[in-house]
């Protein structure tokens, strides 16, 4: 065979398809990865019932009887001011969408470590497929996985009592939510692939994931609003892309006014995604070797 110029995107679909095949052929792993967020919504979301705490009964202070109605009113106001809604369960369930996207995207780095370890990457590097395609195929596959998982979480949330209160007409609301989750997954998948480019040990990659997942989650507004955070945590939360994905989806699905404007949130997410993807592809040209 003599040399002919190949399209820069050749092989991209074949590689993406491979990643996805490996994923949907193992439904057990897919289901297992859903367990954690479901437990968060199901147990934490249901037990941490702020509405009940604030609205359950009338208070008896000696010499002063406050009627239940007033307590309820005050409770609602407090909840509304803190979370932007009186429905904490829905607040958390929507926050879990970005959680599952984060966790799924993080594991994208593992696939490259395994490909290296199992010899597949070595073979790949001897074919004329562009190095960037190897990375981009993994990013695309990771996004598809993330969005499918997020959809399942959303459906389970609805089954468990998530109530929509759209901030904009429903189709646009879903579109915006998926757009923000897409961008979030794009950025995190590229970031974790980048961290795994030279890694030969899956243990290292696991350690990085374990090191970062909880801090990323708890330094965002997934469980509580930024306004209730201590001063030193606020800047971290404001730098955390999860915060912006949550802000967009909570505004779209629950009508909660975001602390940062919608435009700013989306701009932040786009910048996050583009920066890390560009960085990942650039680094793959230089560092993706045996």
């Amino acid at each position, binding site marked *: 065979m003599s*040399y*002919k110029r190949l*399209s820069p995107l050749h092989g991209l679909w*074949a590689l993406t398809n491979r990643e996805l095949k*490996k994923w949907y052929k193992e439904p057990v792993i897919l289901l297992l990865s859903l367990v954690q967020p479901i437990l968060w919504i199901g147990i934490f979301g249901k037990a941490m019932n702020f509405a009940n705490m604030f609205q359950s009964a009338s208070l008896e202070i000696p010499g002063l009887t406050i009627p239940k109605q007033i307590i309820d009113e005050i409770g609602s106001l407090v909840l509304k001011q803190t979370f932007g809604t009186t429905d904490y369960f829905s607040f958390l369930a929507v926050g879990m969408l970005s959680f599952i996207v984060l966790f799924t995207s993080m594991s994208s780095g593992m696939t490259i470590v395994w490909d290296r370890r199992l010899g597949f990457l070595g*073979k790949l590097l001897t074919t004329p497929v562009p190095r960037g395609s190897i990375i981009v195929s993994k990013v695309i596959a990771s996004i598809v996985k993330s969005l499918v998982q997020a959809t399942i979480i959303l459906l389970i949330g609805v089954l468990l009592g998530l109530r929509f209160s759209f901030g904009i007409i429903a189709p646009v609301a879903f579109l915006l939510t998926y757009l923000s989750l897409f961008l979030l997954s794009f950025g995190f998948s590229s970031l974790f692939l980048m961290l795994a480019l030279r890694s030969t040990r899956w243990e290292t990659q696991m350690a990085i994931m374990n090191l970062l997942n909880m801090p990323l989650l708890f330094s965002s507004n997934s469980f509580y609003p930024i306004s209730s955070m201590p001063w030193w945590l606020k800047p971290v939360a404001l730098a955390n892309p999860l915060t912006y994905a949550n802000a967009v989806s909570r505004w779209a699905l629950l009508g909660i006014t975001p602390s940062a404007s919608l435009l700013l949130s989306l701009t932040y997410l786009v910048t996050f995604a583009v920066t890390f993807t560009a960085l990942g592809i650039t680094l793959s040209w230089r560092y993706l070797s*045996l």
Partner: protein
Amino acid sequence: MTEEIINVNGLTKIYSGGVLAVDHISFKVYEGEIFALLGPNGAGKSTTIGMLNTSLKPTEGEAVIAGYSVKDEPSKVRSIIGVVPQEFSADEDLTGWENITLIGYLYGLPKEVVKQRAIELLQTVGLYNVKDKKVETYSGGMRRRLEISMGLINRPKVLFLDEPTLGLDVQTRAAIWEYILRLKKDYNMTIFLTTHYLEEADAYGDRVAIIDHGKILVIGKPDELKRSVTWDTISIEITGSYDSVKQVLSTLPQVKEVNFIDGQIMIKVVDGPTAIPGVVSAINSVGQEVKRLSLNRPSLDEVYMYYTGKSMRDESMSKEEAFALRRTLRRARS
């Protein structure tokens, strides 16, 4: 056979830790030949093959394959070579069919071409009827055949085989070689091979290079190499006494040394088969009869010993290499 297809000039690899793995090697490989690279573990075989197949960047020097530089035009080189790595590289979670077609698409081949070639190759290596089974169910020999067919999907000009029979039993090794030779004939390729099995290099290699400590020690046809380091030995039993023939044998032009050991005359000769008639007639000329005669020709092992000063030794390797080797061996034997 005279057109050069690989031209290596001063190729050098120094790893980031400062390890000099390949030290200014130069050689040529000609179109249509089977070129075997021999050497102990850690001699630089895999590094050399890695630089030639563009998965490793050379630190210094140059290699040109079919007119394309591995340094400056790696993707052109990649599209005209086929690579069968030492490790099993097929994706275990996918079927044989999915693996070979995936590699075809990575070469940018159109769908129909990939399908047609995949069918043809899988039939040739005898895997067509198991093509829809997951690779994890394949035996070692089947995996190796799949790897070889995957390496040929782009109809390469040069096929790189890194230890193609590692860990396989003797019969499977012979079968794999049968496939390799058939495919070589069908596709008219040049084969660049590394192997641990000296008898394979001897039997199938047109030329052999021995590498150790990152340097090429010698290159040549197996027979030439054998002749260059040692002589054939003719062992003879005769009817009469040893002394009567010693004189006449020593004067023959091809004879280098004559000894009498355990009732046998041991004659070291250049090119045994052509020396035998002269030896026999010399013995007859002094009135003696040959009772028994055997010819012992040196194997490539002697050549290898001579140049590397050791038989195939085992050296320490990195954790990853050891892991990969164990995995390959385990699967090869499954």
